[in-house]
């Protein structure tokens, strides 16, 4: 008889095959693009590590020291990223699986049910291993002409790392489950991301102290031993330390390698026992709580207090349409946490770009103007990501609830206008903030700052018009989930058109910045170009969408 695990795994494969058969060309294109991108990143990482290790290992004395540090840092970064990624998704993945009600009614042993989800969690958390550790270890083997023994140790190290990361993520999920009684899942994910962000900063301060490279550059055997001792002490309390030491087998095998792997195995065994105890004591209880309420372990909703009459703020003629959008957005923890994550990434990007620019292109107008244009394009990219996630599926959601407004004495084009005001207002404001932050952090002169902010706002409003317009004219009716609506042909067309538009804005901003940085003059033609192109897109899509809505059956 097949085990429950095998039956569930068979169902997943069946689902995947069905999803592939039912997907359109656009979804397959997007999936292929993602796979190609992942393969390109992994290959790029491999060649980057290979080049680095070859240079390092050419120095017989100092090379192994720095290579060892790179391994320690890579394993640690991957463990933190994998655990963060696993922890953020593990709450939903372990306790709120889509098929939980079906599975709960089947004679599936609890430990097999957990094991199956744990297996999935390991796959979900494996991306940093595939993109960083695996290329690093393969590159090291090529650079050092490693033998079979190295491959055996490295393979075991990779598997142990994956298991360790998934166990840590599971322990975090169990530890945080009681909190979901008070905090919605989306908010909790955001808090976890912020927590890992702070923990990451603390770790970086510990493992990359000031003067690190002076300690790692050695010129004698004694200094080399001291540097290795320093690395051992720095990473000693990290669970990845024995794994990195095991992978360093390539610099000369020793009995320590086996001891290191046994140490990790013991650590993993302890974590596994802890997880087994948690599963036995709490898994069933949490699953029941999750099945009974929207949030884990939350008691049934008590009657809520009566709120003041709607609309509360926007009481003018059609303000209630705007206020409804706002209420729906701000009451959705998922939407809020996604938007907040995107804003965090934008802030992170601006400061990274600032640091890179300061190091490489300071005082070179032709390169500096490219960085300025790239910053505006990056703000546009973030605005596009938001527009495709929020504005593009909005008309689809409106179609699904079309009986409410469609059968009311409201012109459908008014709903488009208010949706546009809402999303363009929000995304435009985020873009404006991104432009201001860029101008402030780079220390732009006023004319360049004004162009940056103006372009950022124009980009935000235009990509929203493209996304909302495409979503309105071609609502992705077949999409089961708004999250996947952007992979429809209309969504891909919106992304492609936005790409062309962002390229054009890039050229205008680059031109403006180069003229200003070289001559101190304001290039009015570039300003007019950005404004004309953006206004044409907003007005064109408004007209097209309104025409489509007035001639549509809902």
């Amino acid at each position, binding site marked *: 008889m097949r085990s429950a695990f095998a039956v569930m795994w068979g169902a997943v494969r069946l689902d995947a095959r069905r999803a592939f058969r039912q997907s359109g060309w656009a979804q397959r294109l997007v999936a292929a693009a993602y796979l190609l991108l992942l393969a390109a990143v992994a290959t790029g990482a491999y060649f980057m590590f290979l080049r680095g290790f070859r240079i390092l290992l050419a120095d017989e004395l100092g090379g192994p020291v720095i290579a060892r540090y790179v391994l320690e840092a890579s394993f640690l970064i991957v463990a933190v990223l994998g655990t963060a990624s696993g922890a953020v998704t593990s709450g939903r993945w372990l306790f709120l699986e889509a098929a939980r009600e079906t599975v709960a009614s089947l004679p599936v042993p609890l430990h097999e049910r957990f094991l199956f989800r744990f297996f999935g969690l390991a796959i979900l958390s494996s991306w940093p291993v595939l993109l960083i550790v695996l290329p690093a270890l393969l590159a090291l083997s090529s650079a050092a002409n490693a033998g079979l023994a190295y491959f055996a140790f490295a393979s075991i190290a990779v598997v142990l790392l994956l298991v360790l990361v998934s166990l840590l993520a599971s322990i975090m999920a169990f530890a945080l489950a009681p909190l979901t009684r008070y905090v919605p899942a989306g908010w909790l994910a955001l808090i976890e991301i912020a927590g890992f962000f702070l923990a990451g900063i603390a770790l970086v301060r510990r493992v990359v102290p000031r003067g690190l490279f002076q300690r790692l550059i050695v010129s004698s055997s004694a200094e080399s031993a001291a540097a290795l001792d320093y690395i051992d002490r720095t990473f000693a309390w990290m669970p990845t330390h024995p794994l990195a030491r095991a992978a360093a087998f390539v610099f000369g095998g020793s009995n320590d390698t086996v001891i290191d792997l046994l140490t990790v195995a013991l650590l993993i065994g302890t974590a596994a026992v802890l997880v087994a105890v948690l599963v036995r004591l709490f898994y069933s209880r949490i699953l029941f709580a999750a099945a009974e309420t*929207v949030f884990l372990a939350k008691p049934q*909703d008590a*009657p*809520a*207090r*009566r*709120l003041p*009459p*709607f*609309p509360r703020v926007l009481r003018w003629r059609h303000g*209630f349409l705007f206020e*409804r959008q706002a*209420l*729906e957005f701000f*009451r*959705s923890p998922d939407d809020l946490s996604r938007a907040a994550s995107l804003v965090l990434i934008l802030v992170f990007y601006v400061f990274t770009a600032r640091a890179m620019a300061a190091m490489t292109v300071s005082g070179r107008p032709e390169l500096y103007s490219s960085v300025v244009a790239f910053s505006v394009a990056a703000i546009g990219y973030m605005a596009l990501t938001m527009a495709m996630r929020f504005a593009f599926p909005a008309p689809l959601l409106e179609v*699904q*609830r*079309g*009986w*409410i*407004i*469609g*059968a*009311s*004495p*409201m*012109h459908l084009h008014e709903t488009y206008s208010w949706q546009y005001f809402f999303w363009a207002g929000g995304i435009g404001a985020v873009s404006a903030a991104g432009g201001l932050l860029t101008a402030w952090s780079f220390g732009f002169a006023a004319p360049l700052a004004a162009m940056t902010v103006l372009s950022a706002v124009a980009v935000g409003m235009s990509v929203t018009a493209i996304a909302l317009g495409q979503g309105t004219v071609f609502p992705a009716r077949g999409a089961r989930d708004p999250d996947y609506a952007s992979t429809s042909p209309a969504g891909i067309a919106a992304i492609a058109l936005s790409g062309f538009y962002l390229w054009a804005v890039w050229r205008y901003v680059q031109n403006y910045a180069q003229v200003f940085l070289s001559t101190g003059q304001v290039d009015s033609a570039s300003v007019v170009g950005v404004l004309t192109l953006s206004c044409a897109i907003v007005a064109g899509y408004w007209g097209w969408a309104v025409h489509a809505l007035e*001639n549509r*059956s*809902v």
Partner: protein
Amino acid sequence: MSKPKPVLEYDKVSKYFNNVPAVDGLALSVAAGEIVGLIGPNGSGKTTTIKMACGLYRPDAGAVRVAGLDVVKDPTGAKRRLAYVPDEPVAYDRLTGREFLQFVGELFGLDRGYRESRIDALLDAYGLRGMAEGLYGTFSRGTKQKISMCAGLLHEPDILLIDEPMVGLDPQSIQTTISLLEEYIKRGGAAFISTHTLPVAERLCGRFVMLARGRVAAAGTLAEMRAEAGLPRGSLEDCYLSLAGKL
């Protein structure tokens, strides 16, 4: 005595999907003060018929008039006089039940004082006043159906178009819905109801229209349906099964 003026008229209406007729040359009317039941097998065109009346689908031929106003030529005028309650009460999950009703009140431009008193009265009828302060997305299907019915009755339309009014409702709520509809009809309203719940339709409706493949297969009062089916003492369900067997 002159015949009451129709509040809903289908004038040789046709609707095609991919060149297949969903509704074909439909002609019927509903007068003020009556409830007409629209019955027929799955795929016979009932939902399409209802959706054309409330402006969600555009007829390919013919005209649909609400209170004399063409739904295509004067959509806002016609829609001001009607209300629609769908079979799937999908709405705004992150608004409370009361906020959703207030939103519908805003759509129809109701005075806020009047709107609040109507909402309280309708919620009280279903015993939902406390529960309606919860988020719509957390409600059961039955509760959503009741809130949708409240939304339909909120602005006291000339004609109420309902697609499957009783699905998901408990017996007590079915009784409440029937009472609310009867009171609404007494005040001069009219209702056009598509349903498969034939015992309730038999109790509630004065006339019936049976559709098959987008055309009227039979129409009339229960007595006329019995005569058509050749079942003098049969229930509406007996008549339906007999007529459906002949199609």
